[in-house]
C-alpha cells in the first residue's frame, strides 16, 4: 500500500483527485442530497479499494556479499509450520553433503494481523521457538549443525533480517503446496528472488490432510 502523502508529487495528484471527487459530490448533492451522499459513499469505497489493492514501488535488488571462508557456503532456511517437514529435512541434508555449509534456520512468528497490531506476539513467538527448537534438535541428531532464530511475522522481512545479519549464499524457502500456501499466494518466493541476488530454492512440504494453512 502506498500513502497518498508519500511525496509532494503524490500529494499533488491526491489533491487533483480530491477536487474531482468533491466536484462530483457537490453536483450530485445539488440534484438531491441523498444522491450526493450515495456518490460520496461510492467514491470513498472505490478509493479504499484502490488503496488496499495497489502495489507499492518495488524495492531495489540487494546485493548479498559473500562472507566467511572462500570454500564455505552459508544457507538461510526460512520455514513456517513446514519447518520439520521431510522434504525440507532432505533438502538441508543434500546441501550439507555438498560441502562445508553453515545453516541459519529462521522461523517467522506467524501471527494474525489483529494480534500483530495489538502487539500480542508472545504466543506466536513461543510457538515458532518450539517448532524451531525441535527442528534444530532433529538436524543435530543427523549430524547437521545449525543455528536458529525466530523471525518477523512477515516472511520477507524475516528473510531480509536474515540476509543482513547472516549474509547467505543461498536462501531456501519452505512452503505448503500451491493452493494451501499463504506465502505462495502472497508471492513471497518470487519477491525474494526479485529482491536478493542469491539463489532462492523453493521447497514444497506436504504435511498431509491436516495441512490447511
Amino acid at each position, binding site marked *: 500500500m502506498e500513502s497518498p502523502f508519500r511525496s*509532494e508529487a503524490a500529494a499533488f495528484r*491526491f489533491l487533483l483527485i480530491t477536487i474531482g471527487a*468533491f466536484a462530483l459530490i457537490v453536483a450530485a*448533492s445539488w440534484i438531491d442530497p441523498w444522491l450526493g451522499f450515495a456518490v460520496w459513499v461510492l467514491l470513498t469505497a472505490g478509493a479504499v479499494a484502490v488503496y488496499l489493492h495497489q502495489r507499492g514501488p518495488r524495492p531495489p535488488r540487494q546485493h548479498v*556479499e559473500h562472507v566467511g571462508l572462500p570454500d564455505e557456503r552459508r544457507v538461510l532456511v526460512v520455514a513456517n509450520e513446514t519447518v520439520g517437514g521431510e522434504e525440507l529435512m532432505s533438502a538441508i541434508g543434500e546441501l550439507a553433503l555438498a560441502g562445508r555449509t553453515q545453516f541459519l534456520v529462521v522461523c517467522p512468528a506467524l501471527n494474525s494481523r489483529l494480534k500483530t497490531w495489538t502487539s500480542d506476539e508472545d504466543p506466536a513467538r513461543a510457538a515458532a521457538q518450539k517448532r524451531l527448537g525441535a527442528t534444530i534438535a532433529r538436524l543435530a541428531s543427523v549430524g547437521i549443525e545449525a543455528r*536458529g532464530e525466530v523471525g518477523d511475522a512477515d516472511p520477507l522481512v524475516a528473510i531480509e533480517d536474515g540476509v*543482513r545479519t547472516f549474509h547467505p549464499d543461498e536462501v531456501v524457502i519452505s512452503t505448503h503446496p500451491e493452493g494451501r500456501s499463504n506465502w505462495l499466494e502472497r508471492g513471497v518466493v518470487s519477491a525474494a528472488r526479485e529482491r536478493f541476488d542469491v539463489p532462492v530454492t523453493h521447497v514444497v512440504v506436504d504435511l498431509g490432510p491436516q495441512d490447511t494453512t
Partner: protein
Amino acid sequence: MTSHAEAAHGSHEHHGPPAAHKSSRVDARVLGMLLFIGSEIMLFGSFFAVYFFVRVANPNAPSEWPPAPYEFPVFVAGINTAILVTSSFTMHWALQSIKRGQRPAFLAGMVLTFVMGLAFLLTQVIEYLHVGFNTGDGAFASVFFGLTGLHGAHVAVGLTLLGMVIIRGFRGHFSPEHHHGVELPGIYWHFVDIMWIVVYSTVYLL
C-alpha cells in the same frame, strides 16, 4: 541456538551494530510528516464531527444552512479556493524546477505560492470582518469559525514553512540532489489545500 545477530563474519569487518534495518522503506522524515498529517486528519475529523452534528444529527438542526437571515460569502470563498488551488500548482512547479536545477523558476514558484497563500489568508480575514455574524450568533456560527479558523491557522503555519524555504532558497540552499526541505513543506501545503476543498465543499456549497 542463538537469538542475536551474528557479531563477526570472518573477513567481513564491521564495527558497531548492523546497518539499520529499513524493511519499512519509509524515510524517517517522510514517516514523521505522515504521522503528523494523520494527527491533523483526526483533528479536522473532530471539527467535522461537530459540524455534522450541528447540521444533521441535532434534533434542532436548522432547515436552512446557514439559518436565515445569515448567508455565507460563497462567491468570495470560491475565488479564494481558486487562489489556494492555484498555489498548489505553483508549489508543484517550484519543486519540479529545483529537481531540474532551474533555480530562478524554483524561486519564482515559491514566491508565487507564498503570495497566493497570503492572499488567501488576508481574504479570509476580510471575509470574517464582513460576514455579518459572530461566534455568539448560534452553533452554526461557532462551527463556521471553528472549521475555517482551524484551516486558516494551518495556512499560517504553511506560510511560515514556505517563508523558510524562500529564505533558504535565496541563500543558495537546495539543489537537484538535495531538496527534501522543499518536498516536506510541499506535502504539507497540498494537505492544507485538500482540507480546504473538503471544508469549502461541506460548509459553503452543500
